[in-house]
């Protein structure tokens, strides 16, 4: 809990600054949109958090979002597949990609960075191939399904703001993920192997299977995110749909307390991290006319946040070590 205090504080500060700088920040329309995007990015960020907890990385998320986000309307429009069949295909592809990554990483011992970097290139390339770079969307069809992303849940007594529907999906995913990580033996195994894979293996944990599972969770949630993203915007261009989303997801996880060295992370932190990313983007959009510097500002904020976190951590370790020495030894 202590860990996410800092990032939550940062989120509040950035919100206040943005609200002071721009009147439109607090408008119902802007907030609703912001909260909706936070939920969507929260889902893919939770996915990558599982991989990061094992000490790995998944760079293919944005391309999986692209593959699924373009592939779903493409199947529906071009081949007129029944919706359940198309969704089943999308689910199978998402799970399959994670399985493939996990197997290559654990059985062939190839670094996650390389495997998922190749995934990043392949899945977008494949999508551009079968769509011939054409934009796909649902038009005015599938309204019932699109509610999942575009719908709103009105709040009693509050006018002008309603909770965007993706929060339902996010909450379900987040609660399941938090229970899995903190309450089951497999969650404990993930943390243990993230900190010391060898010791975990020597303790009788099937580490390969757990690592594969983490990559499957990551790509599955990326696929789910891809579906929700395309339902939201209703138009997916294979060239840039989901572009650099993996970086937003990884940044959110890192800001939320996941260490890239593995073995650390909390689901709430990741969601707060995802929110911070979106507020930062929103701030740049609202307060400057030069939105092309977005990456520069986001990069700088993340870097400062991570450095501050590391310094605080070092200080804490030094203090505890001094205490342990004074108390433990005679």
């Amino acid at each position, binding site marked *: 809990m202590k860990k996410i205090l800092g990032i939550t504080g940062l989120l509040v500060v950035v919100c206040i600054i943005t609200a002071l700088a721009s009147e439109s920040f607090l408008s119902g329309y802007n907030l609703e949109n912001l909260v909706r995007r936070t939920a969507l990015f929260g889902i893919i960020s939770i996915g990558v958090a599982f991989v990061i907890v094992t000490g790995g990385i998944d760079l293919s998320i944005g391309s999986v979002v692209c593959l699924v986000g373009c592939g779903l309307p493409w199947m529906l429009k071009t081949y007129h597949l029944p919706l359940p069949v198309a969704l089943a295909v999308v689910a199978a592809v998402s799970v399959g990609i994670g399985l493939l990554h996990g197997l290559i990483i654990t059985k062939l011992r190839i670094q996650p960075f390389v495997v998922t970097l190749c995934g990043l290139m392949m899945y977008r390339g494949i999508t551009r191939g079968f769509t011939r770079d054409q934009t796909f969307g649902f038009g005015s069809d599938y309204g019932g399904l699109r509610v999942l992303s575009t719908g709103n849940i009105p709040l009693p007594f509050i006018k002008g703001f309603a909770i965007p529907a993706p929060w339902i999906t996010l909450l379900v995913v987040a609660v399941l993920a938090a229970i899995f990580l903190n309450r089951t033996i497999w969650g404990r195994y993930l943390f243990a192997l993230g900190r010391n894979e060898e010791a975990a293996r020597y303790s*009788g944990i099937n580490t390969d299977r757990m690592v594969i599972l983490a990559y499957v969770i990551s790509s599955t949630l990326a696929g789910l995110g891809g579906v929700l993203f395309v339902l939201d915007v209703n138009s997916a261009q294979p060239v840039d749909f989901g572009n650099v989303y993996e970086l937003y997801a990884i940044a959110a996880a890192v800001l939320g307390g996941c260490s890239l060295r593995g073995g650390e992370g909390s689901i709430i932190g990741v969601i707060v991290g995802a929110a911070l990313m979106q507020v930062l983007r929103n701030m740049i959009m609202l307060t400057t006319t030069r939105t092309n510097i977005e990456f520069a500002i986001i990069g700088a904020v993340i870097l400062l946040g991570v450095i501050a976190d590391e310094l605080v951590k070092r200080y804490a370790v030094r203090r505890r070590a001094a205490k*342990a*020495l004074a108390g*433990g030894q005679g």
Partner: protein
Amino acid sequence: MSAPLLEVRNFTKSFPGVRALRGVSLTLARGEVLAVIGENGAGKSTLMKILAGVQRQDGGELLLDGERIEIRSVHDALARGIALIHQELNLADNLDVAANIFLGREPHRAGIMDARRLRREARQFLDAVGLDIDPSVLVSTLPIGKQQLVEIAKALSVDARVLIMDEPTSSLSSREAENLFAVIRDLRKRGVSIVYISHRLGEVKELADRVTVLRDGENAGELAREEIDHARMVKLMVGRDLSQFYPHQPHKPGDVALEVRALRTPANPQHEVSFSVSAGEIVGIAGLVGAGRTELVETIFGVTPALGGSIRLGGVEMVPQSPLDAIAAGLALVPEDRKQQGIVLGMSVRENVSLASLRRDQRHGFLNRPREAQLSAQMIADLRIKTPHDGQAAQFLSGGNQQKVVLGKWLALEPRVLLLDEPTRGIDVGAKQEIYRLMEELAGRGVAIIFVSSEMEEILGMSDRALVMHEGRIAGELQRAELSEESVLHLATGTHRTATLS
């Protein structure tokens, strides 16, 4: 005696959770071979690393030629003529011998290396250590003994006046060791001072002009040339007579608990290893570094699955394919490298203790938290683990307490056969004795214990029976009555080394 070349005054050094040095002093004269001995964790390695500039002391001063100096880096130490030959050699084995000797100081003209001069000058230092090899062969093609001599040649090339050797014979054959001793004597004659760290008391007796003994980060005593004998050294090292230090009682072995049949390890596939251990028996596995001891226990435990043969455990014949298989059959392994394989440093004592038994205690996949808390409380009490609370991260415990946490993890599963690989490496004397007492207690309760150790005293003190390994096979088996330093070394080196040692 004339003024010492090197004098250490009251060095102190702490690491998180450990006081490695609590005020250690020593002197070294010109052309003297000073042996520094002490058990694992006594502070020898820390002291030597400070002298060589790898680490810095927290307190105390260092005098060279009577003048106070500060050593801030390895480079500093070398510039003062102090060189450390590491236990694990520090050579770039993808480079040739000459390149290694002059690494970082290559003779060059305007940045272009002068290869011919490099070889010529290398030759002269190789001659000084009696190495008759071509300076242009790759280091990786040399046997370990020759690599070590290359490292000494490298030290001589920077004009080292003080040569620190950390366990130099731990991976040498007896012939290589003899050769090394000859080189050391020759260096002494030429006025080089040598600090010689070793566990092998026989070697120390043969080589040393003087012995300084460390215990628990303090000076335990000093022996002059004529005082050096086995019993005196051991007494200073452990702080009491050996018979009191090792709580060993002869055990009445029960039924056979583990039978290893024609096991072939991936590391030494040409040899088949067979032996058996009975319930309540403590069997030591001795041998030189690289004899295949760790590989053997890791194969039994399924870390590196066997290429052939099998093990028989509790009436079941099996070939463990993973630690999981081995654990299910009632085996447990406290591995050699505690920090790498034994403990998860960033996790709490509780989480470490429960790691192997989570599966057994699970409730449909969910953690059984009350059971977990109860287990860790029990292990902290039973093993006397010193920790403020069970949520303390393992990295803040001392080495001995970390090792007890690893032991606790396995005792929580109540194994039938306990494999221990260097169980007391890097822990202090007090914790060591507690580990020994635990081994005794477990054996008394009928657990079969197999322990690998590089410490002669430990093998002699704790084994009901010892298996001695040499180059991947079991060279012989010694009953307790037959156990002696000579008999173990004889089998471990595969020669009659004892003749030259006594």
